[in-house]
């Protein structure tokens, strides 16, 4: 057998720092949408296709005005369906790409979320959530797309979703989203909400050489050995550069390692199992959360996005009354921090899940802690006005 060069170590190949052209180093006072756009530019995003919608418009507005000086493309598309597929074309042609929307547009994109999962296209979607369903409340926050982002397309697949709770995090997590998307070749989502998107705060953008970037991994195998969907232990296939003599074929049909359609249960099982497992098996590495005084707490408040800031205020009020309250905030919501929640279930009195919907992440928490805390001790604080984030002491 012909000897091939050993695979170069991943670290040498992909852990680089940001391209300074896209990095607006400095201290800014900007809103979450603008910060997310700067995050995308810093991460190396050079293609955005979008159909602007409130409350996400400022992201594409800023991208459109910034990109000519950075070098890249922005297209205002005819609709969200076209946007969500255009970014995949750009991704396969070699660019880091993104689209941006809110609930009504996000619903239209679902078909292509499934395609991105199936083709393993690295791309980023930002959903600045507003209250729905349908047109709902365009200028007020919601957090009711949390299950849609996970289950929106048909079939089995896994995605990664991050939830920022400040303009600074909109910047940081958008970079993180691009990095994870490249590392795992999976559509990755930044689930903002109108409030975080529209509120302005101090945003610190570090120098380019302090921003870690995970770039696309291209195969180094010779053409006769390369298979587009063959993977190693991490279950993530490496990309091929078009025009380098290696053949590749991509299809939304169930496909084998060559990328060719293969209509049988065995291929389906192998492929889809891998699509799911590449996230599930690496979940511990992807998961990120923040916790404070959780172990031994009478009650732990779980919340994310803008609600986590509102909850913080409620937690402070409860602590003043002498109640031992812990605070838990998933920063990466999908995959969910299952292991930690299961551990905490044995150490705390109960949970309160505060979210701007009528019960989504609370279902996940209920599932994880069932049998470990009394049923009454899981309280879903469904904020009854999903339009308005409120800080009531209850």
């Amino acid at each position, binding site marked *: 057998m012909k000897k091939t060069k050993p695979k170069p170590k991943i670290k040498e190949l992909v852990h680089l720092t940001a391209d300074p052209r896209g990095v607006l180093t400095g201290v800014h006072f900007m809103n979450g949408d603008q910060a997310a756009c700067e995050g995308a530019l810093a991460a190396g995003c050079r293609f955005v296709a979008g159909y602007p919608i409130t409350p996400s418009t400022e992201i594409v507005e800023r991208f459109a005005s910034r990109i000519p000086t950075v070098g890249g493309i922005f297209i205002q598309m005819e609709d969200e369906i076209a946007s969500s597929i255009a970014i995949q074309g750009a991704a396969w042609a070699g660019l880091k790409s993104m689209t941006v929307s809110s609930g009504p547009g996000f619903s239209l994109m679902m078909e292509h979320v499934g395609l991105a999962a199936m083709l393993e296209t690295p791309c980023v979607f930002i959903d600045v959530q507003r209250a729905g369903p349908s047109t709902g409340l365009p200028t007020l926050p919601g957090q009711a797309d949390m299950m849609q982002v996970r289950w929106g397309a048909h079939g089995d697949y896994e995605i990664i979703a991050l939830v920022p709770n400040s303009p600074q995090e909109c910047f940081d997590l958008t970079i993180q989203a691009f990095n994870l998307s490249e590392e795992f070749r999976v559509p990755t989502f930044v689930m903002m909400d109108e409030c975080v998107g529209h509120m302005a705060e101090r945003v610190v953008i570090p120098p380019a050489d302090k921003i870690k970037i995970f770039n696309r991994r291209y195969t180094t195998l010779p053409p006769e050995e390369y298979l587009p969907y063959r993977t190693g232990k991490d279950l993530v296939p490496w990309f091929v550069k078009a025009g380098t003599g290696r053949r590749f074929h991509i299809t939304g049909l169930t496909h084998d390692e060559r990328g060719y359609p293969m209509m049988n249960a065995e291929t389906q099982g192998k492929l889809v199992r891998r699509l799911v497992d590449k996230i599930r098996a690496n979940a511990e590495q992807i998961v990120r959360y923040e916790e404070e005084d959780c172990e031994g707490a009478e009650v732990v408040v779980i919340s994310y996005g803008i609600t986590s800031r509102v909850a913080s205020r409620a937690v402070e009020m409860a602590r003043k009354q002498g109640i031992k309250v812990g605070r838990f905030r998933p920063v990466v919501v999908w995959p969910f921090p299952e292991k930690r929640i299961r551990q905490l279930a044995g150490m705390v009195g109960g949970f309160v899940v505060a979210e701007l919907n009528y019960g989504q992440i609370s279902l996940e928490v209920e599932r994880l802690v069932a049998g470990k805390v009394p049923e009454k001790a899981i309280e879903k604080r469904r904020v009854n006005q999903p339009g308005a*984030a409120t800080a009531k002491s209850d």
Partner: protein
Amino acid sequence: MAKLLKKVQLENPQIEIRISGFGGQGVILAGFIIGRAAALYEGKQAVLTQSFGPEARGGSCSVQVILGDKRIDYPYVVQPRVQVCMSDEAYRKYGGYLGPHAILLYEEDIVRVNREEVASWGNRALGIPATRLAEEVGKRLVVNIVMVGFFVAVTEYLKPESAKKAIQDLVPKGTEELNSKAFERGFKYGKKILSQINKDRSSG
């Protein structure tokens, strides 16, 4: 004024500010100047939220800024410490909610105040003919900057230098001088009113 506000500061370390007026007066920009000055040039925490939708495009329009030393969790104004009203509608909507420790700044040529109410607030309600002053400076357009100058002078939350820097950052190129004049005009007007109040206090 400063004495009064200091007492309140102990109870709630956050300063909640709401500026409201009608679309086109530069209300949002005024909020961004205050927020930027505090967050970038004074090392404070600042959160800004603004009105969106049809009401911000010609109708009534408002911006909310919260300043503090610690991270601000809840980004909306609950009990404004400073209420700036630049239109009659804004005054009718928010002016009446003036809490016991809050102050009201209003455009006195535009807002038709309830005389009795304002009299009962004493020195906590201060008017300024901001639009007229802006016209004297050169353009009615800079009414918001006159108001920012007035705000900085009477509240003493921000150093005038910080606000000036923020103004230079945010106004369109070529209008820096006009805006800086507008700021000075509002600032001086505010200082004059403050010294009048202090004189009254010491003599009475």
